[in-house]
């Protein structure tokens, strides 16, 4: 994705592009239109945005989420030390070794 200049960023910010009250086009599209995606990519069917649930299931999902909120209160109530990092570690991967190019 292409970047924008700092000046452009501030101009857009001041214009309320991040206000969120009204739906705005994504920042990158506002300033720098992207190259249209290849047909194969755009043709891929997107998953439905609305889950295919019955009204009763929707209600039960909301109940399950509410229940989880209660369960997770003990976790959220903890003040974690600032320098406590997650137990997983992101590791860089060295590029695969390539034989030297001849000539």
């Amino acid at each position, binding site marked *: 994705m292409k970047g924008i200049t700092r000046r452009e960023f501030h101009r857009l910010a001041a214009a309320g592009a991040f206000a969120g009250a009204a739906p705005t086009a994504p920042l990158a599209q506002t300033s720098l239109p992207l190259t249209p995606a290849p047909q194969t990519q755009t043709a891929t069917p997107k998953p439905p945005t609305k*889950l295919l649930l019955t009204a009763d299931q929707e209600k*039960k999902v909301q109940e*399950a989420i509410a229940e989880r909120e209660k369960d997770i209160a*003990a*976790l959220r*109530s903890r003040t974690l*030390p600032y320098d406590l990092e997650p137990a*997983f570690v992101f590791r860089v991967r060295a590029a695969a070794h390539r034989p030297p190019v001849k000539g």
Partner: protein
Amino acid sequence: MLSDDILYMSVRELGSQIQARKIRPVQLTESYLARLEKFGPKLGAVATITSKLALQQAKQAEKEIDAGNYRGPLHGIPFGAKDLLATKGIKTTWGAPPFRDQVFEYDATLIRKLTDAGAILVAKLAMIELAGGGGYSNASASLQGPSRCPFNIDHWAGGSSSGPGAAVPSALVAFAIGSETLGSIITPSAFSGVSGLRPTYGRVSRHGAMALSWTMDKLGPMCRTASDCGLVLAAIAGFDPLDETSVRTPYISRPARRVAPGRAALEGKRIGVIRPDFKAEGDPEVEMAFNVALETLRGLGAKLEEMELPDYPYTAIAVTLYSSEAASIFRPFIQSEKLQQLVDESQKIGLVAALSVPATDYLDSFRLRSQIQTDLAKMFERFEVLVAPSRLRPAPRIDVDFNAPQKSAVEKSSDKPGGKPSDKSADKPADKTTAKPTTTPTDTSERHSIIAASNIAGLPAISVPCGFTKENLPVGIQFVAPALADDTCIGFAHNFQNASEWHKRRPSGF
């Protein structure tokens, strides 16, 4: 057909008979296949019987052994695999109707390793759909239907490795492979009287196994003895370039040390005992069996000391970790119409709800996981292993709704299954270590949530039978060891089995 006495032998015994050419792999395989056909449906143990492949592998094993090329203790031994392990050209259903026709074009690393060791795949075994990732409300939450405890078929075999739970104690296979994210080996082992090992996270490659949680899934052996678990683990452990989380530390299965005359097998060994409040949440018969097991350990010379886990909300952390990962893994499926094909309504609801776990909760769980690893490692400076009842109650009846309110211990009831452990109880004042709660104190019963705590930290554990209830339902005791000390918990369980007979009991009618 070979006699039941032979088919109920341990892997170690069968292996030595095969090596001595007293038992022939083809005959052994045919005998287990016949039992799978005969009893598999009654127990709800089987997803697919792999007769053609099995007989092919058995003939190959026989030919090699006859030629003097004995590969080792699993050569010619028939086994079953939970139906979440990819097997080339054979259905792998993940226990779920939407995947009933799924076929992979490769073998899981574990399957390849067992094949290399000369073991014979006789069946893909039943399981709870999607390993119960979204939660489930009853024993029937599976494409294969409910798996039954062979000792009392009105009761559940446990889950989510339900097929292995039913098949191993009824000698439909010599051993089986199960998987655990949060209790799915320990629970069926406890409910069905199996010796089941959950290895250290990363000890066994997960490549080709259905991913439910990249950071919590483990694959492990379910056998008729603890010693057999060591034999199988030796064959399946090891680094795999196809699973970057697999560990390079080698696993060496040490034979039990010979005890010097006049010395007890566990003399001077320190064991931390996690004793839940059975009166509040457990079953009196389980408590009694657990107490007798502790006496057995004392009799072997071990020094027992009651203790509690460091103060953390283990269950909330474990559930947040695996459900967030499951939601990411299965998102396209959850958002498709196929979701409605799942058997269990709770599973559907749970998977959808998991899509909305906040990233901050997931990351906080991972940060607390760091502290839990450190704190549990410190605990093992005092103890070589921890012991606890594998489950607080025996197997529930097959028709029980797991979501129904639990009855009190006096009324005696079923346990909640493997997906979300309910091994909680009231406890002493918290001995806070790190990350102290600022507002809401942790539920005190969490101080005994060993299944959640040990799975979060990736620690190995083994469950072995330690008694039976009046209804002939098995009771299990679990031994938990530090990370990578898989052999330690196997060793303790092996010594316990040398001093007890529970693992030798056979179900009647099978």
